[in-house]
């Protein structure tokens, strides 16, 4: 037996030894190509929290693919300051209480250096005080509520993308430039914080920018309801000029599916604040002429033009080649979060001349501007990032097999976000053209 063992394993061991030697020989050209600052850890462990089950999994899937693509890219380039990134994936489903426990686990058991993630407003609000208490650098990538950075000052929590109020203001500005004679508006939104806040901000923005606008219907549906027949009938009967909806994911697909054949899109100008995210799924079902946005994100896979923007080209082509899907706005916002964290670390390393403490990274993050495929993102001292966004109108693209954005308008950060120090709702309530 022993002889057989030896004879079979021996050559493999030799091969392994040769392999190790080859790897060691190759090391200087890869890992140590970037000088490691003194005190650098063996790896930078980062939690990534997003929905991988339940209705929100449609967002989490994009967040995960963007994370995989980007972290692999960073690691192949030497990581951050020569330290490779290691990602610990956590499912965001299960409610705020579970997320608080998960964050404690990430901080105390997994001992992560930072956490990236949180799509749900309820979850980001719940974990923020815990992140402060545990002193965990937390980079929120998608969660939309303005309350995250406005309710109380945050030190360890950053948000690298616009709030949901920006989405509503961007849509209001776009629709008023495309249809200046709007007289009546209606809303069809989900009956929880996201839907309520989105509609409220849109309604106030419309009334501020065009005071004679009348609200002729406010519909509240259950979270991801599967049956919108009565709501569609009501919208058809009310005949508003404009219908605003912040439906998302599967609920949005279902709504378009049910409303399209019944002529809702022909009757009214419909706006979907998250519409860009489902264009690839809806294929030919999404009618032309619907105003859609990637929330207030500064890019989607065709804008800025990948042919003229190398960073956009690399992301779009790399993501599509690896996952068979173009990056959508959750993917772009995930990119913003990871690249922001990396830029903050790199700035802090440079400033400190060694591996920085979390507090030094935080200091470096404040006021930082960094480049992403969706443009330049600037992190304000209040830990809320500001950036511009695009809105467009759907047009079927036979080349892609789904609707793309036509008549794209790029709104500046100043047009869609309150100035530093002004509360979001005060700003929406005092909007000017």
């Amino acid at each position, binding site marked *: 037996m022993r002889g057989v063992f030896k004879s079979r394993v021996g050559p493999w061991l030799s091969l392994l030894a040769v392999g190790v030697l080859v790897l060691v020989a190759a090391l200087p050209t890869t890992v140590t190509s970037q000088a490691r600052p003194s005190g650098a850890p063996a790896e930078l462990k980062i939690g990534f929290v997003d929905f*991988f*089950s*339940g*209705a929100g*999994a*449609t967002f*989490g*899937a994009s967040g995960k693919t963007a994370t995989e693509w980007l972290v692999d890219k960073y690691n192949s380039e030497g990581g951050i300051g020569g330290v490779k990134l290691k990602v610990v994936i956590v499912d965001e*489903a299960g409610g705020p209480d579970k997320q608080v426990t998960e964050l404690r686990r990430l901080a105390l058991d997994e001992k992560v250096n930072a956490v990236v993630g949180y799509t749900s407003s309820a979850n980001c609000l719940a974990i923020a005080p815990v992140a402060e208490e545990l002193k965990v650098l937390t980079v929120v990538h998608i969660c939309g509520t303005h309350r995250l950075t406005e309710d109380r000052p945050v030190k360890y929590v950053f948000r690298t993308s616009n709030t949901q109020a920006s989405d509503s203001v961007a849509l209001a500005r776009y629709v008023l430039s495309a249809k200046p004679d709007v007289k009546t508006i209606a809303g069809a939104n989900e*009956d929880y914080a996201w839907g309520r806040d989105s509609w409220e901000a849109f309604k106030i923005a419309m009334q501020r920018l065009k005071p004679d606008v009348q609200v002729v*219907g*406010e*519909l*509240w*549906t*259950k*979270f*991801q*309801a*599967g*049956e919108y*027949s*009565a*709501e569609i*009938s*009501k919208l*058809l*009967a009310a005949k508003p000029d404009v219908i605003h909806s912040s439906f998302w*994911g*599967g609920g949005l*697909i*279902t709504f378009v*599916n*049910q409303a*399209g*054949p*019944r*002529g809702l899109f022909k009757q009214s100008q419909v706006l979907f604040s998250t519409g860009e995210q*489902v264009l690839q*799924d809806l294929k030919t*079902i999404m009618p032309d002429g619907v105003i859609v946005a990637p929330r207030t994100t500064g890019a989607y896979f065709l804008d800025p033009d990948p042919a003229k923007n190398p960073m956009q080209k690399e992301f779009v082509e790399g993501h599509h080649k690896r996952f068979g899907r173009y990056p959508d706005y959750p993917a772009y916002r995930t990119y913003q979060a990871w690249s922001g964290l990396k830029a903050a670390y790199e700035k802090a390393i440079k400033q400190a001349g060694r591996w920085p403490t979390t507090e030094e990274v935080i200091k470096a993050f404040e006021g930082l501007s960094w480049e992403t495929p969706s443009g330049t993102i600037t992190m304000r001292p209040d830990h809320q990032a500001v950036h511009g966004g695009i809105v467009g109108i759907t047009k079927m693209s036979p080349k892609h097999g789904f609707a793309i954005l036509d008549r794209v308008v790029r709104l500046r950060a100043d047009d869609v976000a309150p100035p530093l120090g002004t509360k979001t709702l005060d700003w929406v309530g005092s909007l000017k053209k």
Partner: protein
Amino acid sequence: MRLLTIILMDGTVFAAVLFLISVGLTLVFGVLRILNVSHGGIYAFGAYMATYLAIKILGAGASPYLTYLMLLAGAIIIGMVTGPIIERVFLRRIYGSDQHITLLLTFSIFLILDDLLKLIWGTKPMFVSQPYTLLGEFSIAGIPYSWYQVVLIVVSIVFGGALVWAVRGTRFGKIVVSVINDREISQAIGINVNRIYTVSFTLGAFCAALGGALIAPTISVTPGFALDATVLAFAVIAIGGMGSLEGAALGALIVGLLRALAVHLLPEADLVVIYLAMILVLVVRPEGLFGQVELRRI
């Protein structure tokens, strides 16, 4: 008058959907005396399988009319596979246990089924709208509706009628009623009670899968979409009376019409009214409108 017509139409459409979701639940409760939470998982599986088959057949270039056949095929496959497995492997071991054991067990099965869906079909929304759009539209009170919505109403009436006939008018139905009334006596007179349980549960599973398959073309199927439908189905059978087919029909109609009424007149209350109705019924008549008072057996 126009508004009333629209409300009646919307309410009936929603009632048809609710009836298709809840009829299997009430059937299983009637025979097996268990609250089958895994019903929602089978419903989701039916929707996914039907969507998957319909997409496949469309991808193969077949006539879009064949998608209707695929919806039915999806329901049959899922009903025939999940029903016997769940009943024989899991439920058979816990008959006669406390309700909370069956609730926990069937809820676990629901969660497992939901995860299985993701393993098989991933997390991206899947949908096939051809069966919904193929039949065209018509107008009532100036509001366009899809003919497929009428199909849902007709199917739920025919299907409900067929189930009532199967229970009341056939030999199998009489045996089922005998098992419902007294399991031990039925066994004593030579009825294979285990077989009746398997067949009844499989029929309930088929109802769930058929509900999912028929609703699939009107929605996009995503992980977790069945949870709300399951909760609503419980409200429907609580109102109508657990175990009663007529109760499920009436419960669905009440919930459907109340919701349509709320959406048109008081949209903020569209969910509250459903559960208010449920509470009201449970307070006045705890066994539900068509439910029978369970006698305590010594």
